[in-house]
């Protein structure tokens, strides 16, 4: 019966798109890679297309996509990070207009607000896969073993230092996570996003930013997190690849809700759980960093855009593909997919809980320029210099703001 249905469906679809050889690229962890390949197999069979999978880890993926677009060799279907839209498609012509395929992709499964997140210059360049945000995750097994409750504020994180066992630290923040930690702290204290959307300048004063840097440094001084030097000693690898994380010797991190599996999988039997956002004492809001997650886009140069649209619709809305993909990219933005997963119990309760925390938190709407490569680089460089004691937080903040303003000047 299933075979018959598939055959009929494939025949029907053949009226709108010829059998095509397509390519799809994405980044992610092992779980996402395996599930996406399986879903592509199903969707390819349903629509009579062959879809070659091109997947990598997060590191270097933007460079890969950039090179491909510049060389006009990008995949037909691309998983795009939301902040990349203004970089690749400032006027909306960098990717195909997905509204042109509204007869193939069931866009009614997204709200207009959600779709607006994938638009550039009024053109729907990317279909939001999910909405995502930063969440604090803790290794519950480690806290349980020490007889401590999961932290609900920073004082409890500091208090857990030295109580979790020999050499066990309650938290980790270095590199990008340290940037987000400082950023969230300052947003909580000021109620402002890093970038003022009206003026396209840095909204924080040097004093406010310096306060955030000092907060990060105080966590290192208190021994709640490893110093930048110590983490750098592991080499250029991510936390979830580090032995201390897998061993439970680092018991917490601040990550995207959609990255849950990437961090939970290496823990084996240990349980990783999300907790409500940790606030600083003077917080005026949660400082939640929430944004459209990754988007699926079709290359503006694809020779088979209709076939690509069929695959996108299948991945996002088809019950069988939805079941396979599960929450590998966080909770789906597509109503059909999220309802299906909720009904089938296909969502990891911890992923659902993390996503609920993201949605429940408040804070200013972040500008995509928060994630502009140059802004990130400046933030990271000065934070690192402050962490190494090479510059005072006040001076770092002054320099940082000055350089960031110069970096984003062209977007005014």
């Amino acid at each position: 019966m299933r075979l018959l249905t598939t055959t009929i469906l494939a025949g029907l679809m053949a009226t709108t798109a010829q059998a095509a050889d397509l390519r799809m690229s994405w980044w992610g962890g092992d779980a996402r890679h395996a599930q996406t390949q399986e879903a592509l197999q199903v969707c390819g069979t349903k629509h009579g297309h062959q879809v070659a999978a091109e997947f990598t880890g997060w590191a270097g993926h933007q460079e890969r996509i950039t090179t491909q677009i510049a060389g006009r060799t990008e995949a037909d279907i691309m998983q795009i990070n939301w902040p990349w839209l203004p970089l690749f498609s400032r006027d909306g012509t960098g990717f195909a207009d997905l509204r042109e395929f509204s007869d193939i992709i069931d866009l009614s499964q997204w709200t207009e607000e959600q779709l607006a997140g994938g638009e550039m210059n009024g053109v729907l360049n990317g279909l939001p896969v999910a909405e995502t945000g930063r969440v604090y995750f803790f290794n519950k097994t480690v806290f349980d073993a020490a007889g401590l409750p999961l932290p609900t504020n920073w004082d409890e994180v500091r208090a857990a230092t030295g109580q979790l066992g020999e050499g066990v630290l309650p938290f980790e923040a270095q590199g990008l996570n340290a940037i987000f930690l400082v950023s969230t702290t300052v947003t909580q204290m000021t109620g402002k996003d890093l970038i003022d959307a009206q003026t396209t300048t840095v909204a924080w004063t040097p004093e406010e930013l310096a306060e955030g840097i000092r907060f990060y440094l105080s966590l290192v001084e208190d021994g709640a997190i490893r110093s930048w030097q110590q983490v750098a000693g592991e080499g250029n690898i991510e936390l979830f690849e580090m032995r201390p994380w897998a061993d439970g010797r680092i018991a917490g991190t601040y990550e995207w809700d959609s990255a849950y599996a990437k961090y939970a999988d290496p823990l084996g039997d240990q349980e990783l759980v999300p907790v409500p956002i940790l606030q600083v004492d003077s917080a005026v809001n949660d400082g939640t960093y929430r944004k459209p997650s990754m988007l699926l886009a079709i290359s503006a140069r694809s020779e088979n855009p209709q076939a690509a649209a069929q695959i996108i619709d299948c991945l996002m809305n088809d019950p069988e593909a939805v079941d396979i993909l599960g929450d590998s990219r966080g909770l789906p933005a597509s109503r059909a997919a999220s309802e299906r997963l909720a009904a089938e119990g296909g969502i990891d309760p911890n992923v659902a809980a993390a996503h609920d925390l993201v949605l429940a938190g408040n804070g200013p709407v972040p500008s995509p320029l928060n994630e502009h490569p140059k802004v990130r680089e400046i933030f990271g460089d000065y934070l690192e210099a402050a962490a190494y004691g090479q510059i005072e937080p006040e001076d770092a903040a002054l320099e940082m703001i000055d350089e960031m303003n110069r970096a984003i000047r062209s977007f005014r």
Partner: protein
Amino acid sequence: MESPRIGLAYLAPYLIGLLVFTAIPFLGSLYLSFTDYNLIQSPVWSGMDNFRELMNDRTFMRSLRVTLLYVFITVPLKLAFALFIAVILNYRLRAIGFFRTAYYVPSILGGSIAIAVLWRYIFADAGLVNMVLTGMGLEPVNWFGDPVNALFTISLLRTWQFGSAMVIFLAALQAVDKSLYEAAAIDGANKWHSFVHITLPLITPVIFFNLIMQMVQAFQEFNGPYIITGGGPLKSTYLLPLYIYDEAFKNFNMGYASAIAWVLFLIIMVLTVVAFWSSKKWVYYAGDKRS
């Protein structure tokens, strides 16, 4: 078929490769260095703007300093080590063929991503090197977290790939006329004297060749720092090729990246010219009339 055509046919694959993969990108990057090009839109002519900006770019200056330091550490270290091993392998030892092969293998593997990843694990905090150090009762070293150690660790990876330089040294050592050593021994020279006064002068053309080759390669190092340290900490391993890569593919400044690449090319060229100029004073060729 006439012989010139046959010759051309044999040359064609090389010439096409040279044209497509070297000459065109080479000239293309020269053009791009005078433009503002973000990869997505067409290049816009900007004259000398990129080069002027470079002079005030602190990241460029820091990266240039690190690159020069890396080259000045790595090249002499690698040449000295390659020559040292070549001298040992020039002796008639048992299983000498095995040793020569074994010492050459790292050169084949050394530049690969897998070896860079392996290096990262060996020198990580809980890696093999620190395990050995603590096993000997010594303090572990933060190889990647300390800016000085990090550059040294990256330099070691390149030094470890000494095989190709070693093979060339070995060939040169074997070409040295043995009767010179016998004559020196009769005059009372010991091994060290023979090495300094006979071997070294006679292999200076090969030392010079290896110096140029290794210097050019060291200036182009990318894999090691990219994989092992990501250019950190504090940009202490942020070599110019990494900066070129970041500007081109992360920050979309292909014009600026091309300008940096050309400055790097000019630096290599100047140092090569200096090396050639200095070679008149220390490189001895057969039939040389100098005393």
